[in-house]
């Protein structure tokens, strides 16, 4: 854009970027920076703030509770993320087809997203009940004896993952739908004329054109699933026997139950470092994939 002078560029930035920047800084970045400072302190929220340097970080990295929470969080991510992205994509493809009543269907698939976690956890705790729930009943119809789900430490996380996938599908589908809408119809028509099968059309047109959307969805889902909390809090409170204790649950407990705000902040920043690293890695991977596609 040679036609744009520096002055007009900075003027444009002032109008377009500055409002967001001021708000982001005051209400989001400042608290984030504060939490970083707090992570080097010991503070019970009531008395004085005491400087402890890196002690919190060292303690957190050696803390078996933190290690267990991290493990559980990673299990959650591995179980949740690929499933949600794949199922939502499939669902978006279905909902994008020219069928009657797709507005109604789209609304239906979004209902779980807006249903409150209190209601969702009640229902799902019921459905996951090993004796009376629908899930094990359905499994028994095909000859499988269902596990103890939320009562069994080995299966509790699976139950939480299942519930989360169910609840979040609609959210990711909406984003994919928006991405699908942007793919120009003439592309498909030309491909159909060329004799391409639906499968080929998907791989040569849909999937590449969706790449930015997939990147967005994966990034956002990664960031949010590292911070999974609400569902664990209402469904299992981190149990049974700590099987579903995740990072943010540990952070919450340390901040508001154990009077250890400094320590909680340190754990948050360890989590941050992980999320940031994974996001950058994913970004680089995406760029490399884009380049190889040509």
């Amino acid at each position, binding site marked *: 854009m040679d036609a744009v002078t520096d002055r007009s560029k900075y003027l444009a930035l002032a109008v377009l970027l500055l409002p967001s920047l001021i708000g982001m800084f005051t209400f989001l970045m400042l608290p984030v920076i504060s939490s970083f400072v707090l992570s080097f302190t010991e503070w019970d*929220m*009531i008395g004085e703030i005491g400087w402890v340097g890196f002690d919190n970080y060292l303690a957190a990295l050696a803390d078996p509770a933190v290690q267990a929470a991290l493990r559980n969080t990673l299990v959650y991510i591995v179980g949740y993320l690929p499933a949600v992205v794949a199922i939502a994509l499939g669902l978006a493809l279905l909902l994008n087809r020219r069928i009657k009543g797709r507005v109604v269907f789209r609304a239906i698939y979004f209902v779980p997203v807006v249903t409150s976690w209190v209601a969702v956890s009640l229902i799902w705790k019921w459905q996951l009940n090993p004796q009376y729930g629908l899930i094990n009943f359905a499994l028994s119809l095909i000859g499988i004896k269902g596990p103890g789900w939320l009562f069994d430490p080995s299966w509790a996380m699976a139950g939480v993952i299942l519930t989360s996938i169910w609840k979040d599908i609609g959210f990711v589908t909406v984003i994919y739908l928006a991405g699908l809408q942007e793919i120009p119809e003439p592309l498909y028509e030309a491909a159909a004329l060329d004799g391409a099968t639906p499968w080929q059309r998907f791989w040569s047109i849909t999937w590449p054109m969706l790449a930015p959307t997939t990147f967005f969805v994966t990034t956002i889902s990664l960031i949010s699933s590292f911070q999974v909390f609400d569902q664990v809090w209402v469904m299992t409170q981190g149990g049974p026997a700590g099987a579903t204790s995740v990072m943010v649950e540990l952070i919450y407990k340390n901040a508001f139950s154990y*009077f250890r705000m400094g320590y909680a902040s340190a754990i948050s920043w360890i989590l941050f470092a992980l999320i940031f690293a994974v996001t950058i890695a994913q970004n680089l991977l995406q760029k490399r994939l884009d380049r190889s596609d040509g």
Partner: protein
Amino acid sequence: MTILRRSIAAMLLATAASPAFAEDITINYITFSAAPNYIEELEATIAAFEAEHPGVDVKYETAGWDAYFTKLQTMVAANKAPDTFELNYENFVTYAQKGALLDLGPLMTADPGFDAGVYNPTALAAFAQDGKQYGLVESFSNVVLFYNKDLFDAAGVAYPTADWTWKEELEAAQKLTDASKGVWGDFAPIQFWEFYKTIAQNGGSILSPDKQTVTIDSAQNVETLTWMIDKVNTYKVTPSDVDMAGQASEDLFKAGKIAMLRTGIWLLGDFAQNAKFNWDIALEPGNTQKAHHFFSNGVAVSANSAHPQEAYEWVKFLTSSKAAVDIRVAAGWELPAVSDTAAVQGYLDQAVPESREVVFQALDTAVVPPVVGNWNQLTDAVGKELDAAKLGQKTPEQALADAKVAIEALL
């Protein structure tokens, strides 16, 4: 000259002692027990207080129990703590130890109208720490044995008496349990709070009386935990978590599916209204001795309050004035911990259940939670070990041994 000086001094003293000031003073108060059912009662109490203390306004805030401490702590952290706030006993100890509360002792001594005897002495002592009175007790509650008389009659079992021990309880439970009808004889949850009381019924404890030694792994405690778990797994008189199918024990009791239930007196009103069968309460059976829970809520003044005197007047009024006590008893809004039994007569006179005096009898064998610093971490750590034992991941012995290690790390 002297007369003039004396009269000026007297005038000054008079104005200093008078509670009325030029502009209204606002005292903030935050509570969890008032919402959602007792807002009217709280407002009535405030109105009565403001009538007696013109020039002082009380502004209240409420928060649900789950989020209460998140909110309170954030306010304290931002130096915006309310002048007065409600605390349950367990959190009270932590706040007192951390210096968040005002020592009410000097205000109490300087107050001519104050008589500490108006409070139940045990309850009042609970809100003292290191010899200083950091809070005033507002209410207390405890846990007793609720039983379904109709189910007892149908099974031909005699009602629980004060002489019952665990042995009689188990025998009755076995006769009352009817798997075909989905009826369970007995219920007590396997969790931390139930645990520290149940072990007391067998002569055990979590910590030594001076709180310096951890005694959670004693042989008696192992025996107790084994008994609690056996009732579910071996004798099958108590439903497991899976059997409960996500329902609360009180809901099952109301549905007539549990014959004996150890739960809190805060459910008396609910059961009186919604349990469509004959029921009553009894003292909990112990093993070698009796023990009952003692839960208590108190009110404290923030150490940073700008109006300590008025704040003190408010908490004193809320916890012990006749007006406040009467309002509380009439509405069934927890039990005031006052020593005047006539004041709680209204509570005792209510028809259901018959044996209401059990509530006060249970106070004789009360077990106070052994609160130490890092209390919440302690309850979480022990809870995790109890979970493991409950699930069969560890033997009761192993679970309690691990719990001891965890607690020692926290002390």
